[in-house]
């Protein structure tokens, strides 16, 4: 199976596998890394000591997320008309932009596509092919931000042993994606939109709060008390739609095995830790590896990595420069 297929299957729910073949160069790197245990430990401690713990990418991301959502709000409230509409569909200085998953549900339910719907969907498709699909989740989706905040609370409660995290099968999201699609076709209603916290929150911000926020509250409560980041990890079809679109994206987080001490801090902060399986000792098959389509490019792993083994990368650009 090619790496691409494997990553895609991983996004759909398959468990990561050990590599069948490890490149000679990687074998050499690993050998040198562990040749002298004392040196290895010393280097590790050295790296830790000199790690400037920062939230650089998280802060930038939050700023972008807030700015995008604020632009929606202000466009309506102050009537500046830059970004009109909400996250499901909008117009940026007149150009149609339509959320890919919402467009999909409407097309399946209504079974008729008008020109504006196609234009808006295609534009957004291109944007996220370039920017990396699930980048939408961590850099734009307002539910992601709320869930990030409540996740901190969940982790505190787990630490105090008040709650435990219940993991579901990651394939559940794929099942949801198919079921929501089927329900749109069969019932003729965009069933998913009724529950989508992304749409609900975006509309609540722009047009004012309503009962639907209660549902969002319940979801957050479920995540705090029962299962870490459950909606984004196991349910939300928006993430899978964007993930599929970003599968061929040039923008990704890449992993450089040479600099890694395999301590696993990155996997602890990650929304989708299975994409960081390559950071487990012995799992990397190439010197540099992309994390694949399910990665939301949130940058938490980049912030936390003490050695710079994880970086943002634009495929092809590094070769050009």
């Amino acid at each position, binding site marked *: 199976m090619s790496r691409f297929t494997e990553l895609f299957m991983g996004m759909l729910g398959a468990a990561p596998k050990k590599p069948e073949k490890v490149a000679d160069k990687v*074998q050499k790197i*690993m*050998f040198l890394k562990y040749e002298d245990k004392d040196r290895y430990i010393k280097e590790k401690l050295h790296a830790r000591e000199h790690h400037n713990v920062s939230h650089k990418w998280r802060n930038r991301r939050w700023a972008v997320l807030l700015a995008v959502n604020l632009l929606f709000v202000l*466009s*309506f409230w102050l009537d500046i008309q830059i970004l*009109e*509409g*909400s996250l*499901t*569909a*909008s*117009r940026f200085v007149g150009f*149609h932009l*339509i*959320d890919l998953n*919402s*467009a999909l549900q*409407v097309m399946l*339910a*209504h079974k*008729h596509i*008008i020109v*504006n*719907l196609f234009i*808006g969907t295609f534009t957004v498709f291109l944007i996220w092919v370039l920017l990396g699909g699930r980048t939408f989740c961590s850099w734009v989706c307002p539910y992601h931000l709320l869930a990030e905040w409540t996740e901190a609370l969940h982790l505190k409660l787990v630490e105090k042993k008040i709650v435990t995290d*219940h*993991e*579901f*099968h990651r*394939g*559940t999201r794929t*099942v*949801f994606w198919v*079921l*929501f699609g089927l*329900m*749109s076709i069969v*019932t*003729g*209603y*965009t*069933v*998913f*939109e*009724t*529950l989508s916290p992304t*749409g*609900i929150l975006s*509309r609540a911000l*722009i*047009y004012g709060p*309503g*009962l*639907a926020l*209660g*549902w969002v509250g319940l979801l957050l409560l479920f995540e705090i008390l029962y299962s870490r980041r*459950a909606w984004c990890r*196991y*349910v939300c079809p928006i993430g899978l739609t964007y993930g599929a679109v970003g599968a061929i994206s040039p923008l990704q987080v890449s992993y450089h095995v040479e600099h890694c001490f395999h301590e696993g801090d990155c996997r602890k902060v990650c929304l989708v830790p299975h994409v960081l399986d390559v950071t487990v000792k*012995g799992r990397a098959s190439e010197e540099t590896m992309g994390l694949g389509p399910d990665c939301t490019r949130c940058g938490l792993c980049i912030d936390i990595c003490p050695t710079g083994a994880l970086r943002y990368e634009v495929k092809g650009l590094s070769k050009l420069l």
Partner: protein
Amino acid sequence: MSTPTPQKPKKPAMSIEKAQKARRKFLQSVGLAGGVIGLSLLGYIPVSSAKTPRLRPPGALNESDFLSSCIKCGQCVQVCPVQAIKLGDLNDGFGVGVPYIDAREQACDFSCDAVQCVLACPTGSLTYKKPEFLKISDGAMLAAAPILKAKEKDAESTLNLKERIGVARLARPESCLAVQGKPFKGQTRGAAFTGKMRYMDVDRWKPIPIRDHPYDLELCDLCVQACPVKNALELRPVKGADGVERMTPTVLEPCVGCGVCEMICPAEPAAIVVDARAPWKA
């Protein structure tokens, strides 16, 4: 890695504990899927049990097509000059985020002339021209393009609207001031009412609050005056059950169902109302 693995050893059988854990995880996942899908389908209840249908913005497709095609973005809300359009909440089920008009609070008086909400709609939920395969329900088609009173003197005096969104009806003739032969003086709907309308004699492009436009009428004909469509509503002498002729607001075929009559009616509750999605019956 560096040590080549010899012949793959036989996979050890899964421990009972591990198998139980996997089983539990699977069942929990099924539970999660069932729960969320079940909840999402609850959205069907308000849709199927709705006693009175919502009044949708002009140019809306038939209700089920409207719900399926609306992407719930609210762009129609943003362009409306009188803020007549609101979005449904969770108690609307599948109608959450879908636009509707509460005519009594704020009706569409076509202040925008061009039906801006239709222009704004990205999915064709609101449309000037229905695609061929969507059928037009009986009594929805307007006999002719409605003439907008405000545009009557313009070169193009009609409104680009082919179907009505409802029909007005004198629901409570006993409380109608005209039927009672009574005058009307002052602010209709009181000083606290926030509804707006455009008055051509004030400013064609700037709708003002109705409370800022008091009336003094010998016989109340507010609904007829306010009706934005020509020949849609008239005061006519109609014989009651007692054989006495009284001036009565009478709804005519050009009525598009905008609901301005319902908004302006000073009786509480309104004597004249708009029946959303009702067909025209001669």
